[in-house]
């Protein structure tokens, strides 16, 4: 059993960008890979693979009943996989009431955790959700009970995902006990791509081939994925969002957030922002 390589992140932190890189790297083709056929999917919280692995409908179970089976589903998938399996995940690294981790280290090869300046995450997340109500997103990012897809009125195509607050999400993965985790900053992927993507490739024990890394970076450039989305659309775009690939810039929060909104994010997440180099010694945003 090779185990699963988790591609973990809070939403809007470079996960899809990395999957585009990974797909290009693995295929090693002469032209950019199709963004509508990316590796690393479906997401760990997808409902259909869960139902198929378990043998009955998650739609007829409570979210806690589902969560109790999720660790076994991942072990099952890791055992069944013929080659290294890459799997995107937005869940925070959490533990069930009996102490078992939702994502078992025994099912895991390693985890690549993508982190991005929360000031930029807030802006990107709002656009992704099809609005610009930044205050609402900022509240969500500070809320420990924050979850995705937790509704009892319908059956969403994904299972409930406990995101926790942005800070707790980052810490949950960066400090996950018994897991081999490499934290990759979005800003480093942008500013020092060859070094950063190269480190990820080596950490995941993929072929250490600088030329192949360089080509995959080129094929997954923002302009390329944007062009593809404009032409053919992107299946992972939220229905209400205008586009998935919007700007892909560092520091665009400076044009979008009010000083009060930025200050609120910094106040909510100072400790983790400092730890990952998003605040300088004076407490000012670095990017």
């Amino acid at each position: 059993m090779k185990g699963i390589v988790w591609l973990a992140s809070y939403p809007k932190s470079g996960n899809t960008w990395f999957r585009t890189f990974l797909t290009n790297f693995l295929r090693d083709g002469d032209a950019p890979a199709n963004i509508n056929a990316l590796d690393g999917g479906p997401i760990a919280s997808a409902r259909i693979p869960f139902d198929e692995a378990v043998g009955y409908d998650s739609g007829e179970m409570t979210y806690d009943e589902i969560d109790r089976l999720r660790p076994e589903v991942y072990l099952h998938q890791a055992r069944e996989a013929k080659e290294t399996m890459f799997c995107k995940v937005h869940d925070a690294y959490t533990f069930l009431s009996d102490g078992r981790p939702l994502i078992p280290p025994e099912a895991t090869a390693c985890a690549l955790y993508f982190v991005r300046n929360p000031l930029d995450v807030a802006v990107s997340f709002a656009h992704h959700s099809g609005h610009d109500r930044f205050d609402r997103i900022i509240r969500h990012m500070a809320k420990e009970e924050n979850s995705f897809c937790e509704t009892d009125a319908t059956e969403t195509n994904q299972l409930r995902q406990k995101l926790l607050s942005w800070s707790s999400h980052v810490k949950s993965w960066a400090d996950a006990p018994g897991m081999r985790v490499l934290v990759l900053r979005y800003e480093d992927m942008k500013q020092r791509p060859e070094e950063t993507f190269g480190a990820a490739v080596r950490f995941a024990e993929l072929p250490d081939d600088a030329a192949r890394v360089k080509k995959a970076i080129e094929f997954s450039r923002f302009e390329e994925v944007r062009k593809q989305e404009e032409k053919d659309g992107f299946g992972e775009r939220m229905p209400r969002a205008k586009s998935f690939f919007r700007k892909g810039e560092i520091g665009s929060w400076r044009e979008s957030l009010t000083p009060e909104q930025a200050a609120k994010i910094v106040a909510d997440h100072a400790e983790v922002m400092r730890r990952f180099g998003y605040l300088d010694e004076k407490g000012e945003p670095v990017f």
Partner: protein
Amino acid sequence: MSDLDFGTAVAGHQHLAFGLRVRSSLPLPELLPAVSTAQSDVEVVYGEVPAELPGALARGVRYQSAPGALRLQVDGVANYLVRDGRRITIARDPAADDDDVRVFLLGSVFGALLHQRQDLVLHGSAIEWAGEAVVFLGHSGVGKSTLAAAFRKKGHAVLTDDLCVVRPGPDGRMLAYPGFPQTKLWLDSLKQLDVSAEGLRRIRNKLEKRAVPLGGDFVGTPLPVKKLYLLRPHNKDDLKLTAAQGPQKFNILKNHTYRFGFLAGIDGKAGHFQHALKLAQQTPLAVVLRPSGAFLLDELVALVEADLRA
């Protein structure tokens, strides 16, 4: 089959489902009652269920499937053993109530039983259209039951919900069989259908999903399949209907086989594929994309109606 003893009449509730006579120790109020005391096709009994199935060829997280036997475990509810397409044994958890036990019995457990009988078991709901059956295929949550319920509102009887059994008829035409007179709907769907949730039983007391009895709007006889529709969500704003062709039709039936994983352990696979191929050859199939954001239920019904009339 030595452990089967159908000769002696055991006490039990007599029901009809999927064209089979079911005798059950557990009352199954969702199913039609059977008046006949003739020998049953299926027995549902309480008993012991072994932890391991010897010779299991397929294993999921909570199922084991061997030729002629399938074990399904629902934590905190029951363990189920399905044998030879004829006998279901239930070992229930003391904490579970009847509703819990029946939800999984009438879903995956019956699905396994039908697979063992070499039936073609599709993940779909079906309605009656001018004496024929129209089947809506799709993954969980895509809106099969809601669409069937919308057709019911327009005066079309429902044949089955979620689990659709297709068997060849005497003239070779593939027939969809009636399941049982109930659909299951979430609160959002009830709202879209303008149906009050009040008085509708929760399918399990922990869930908001409701059981909607069909009463007289249920077809009790098998009907030839007129057309199949595969429902799929997309993230665009429009509805789109495209006819599927050739091998694509067979692949869709394969991908929307109910609990396809069970089949790997069952020796009925050849029969399954033979029936799927026959259905694909006989029946037109269209793929319908609907927005994942807004359901557009009325528009969807209108689109399917227009297609069926064309």
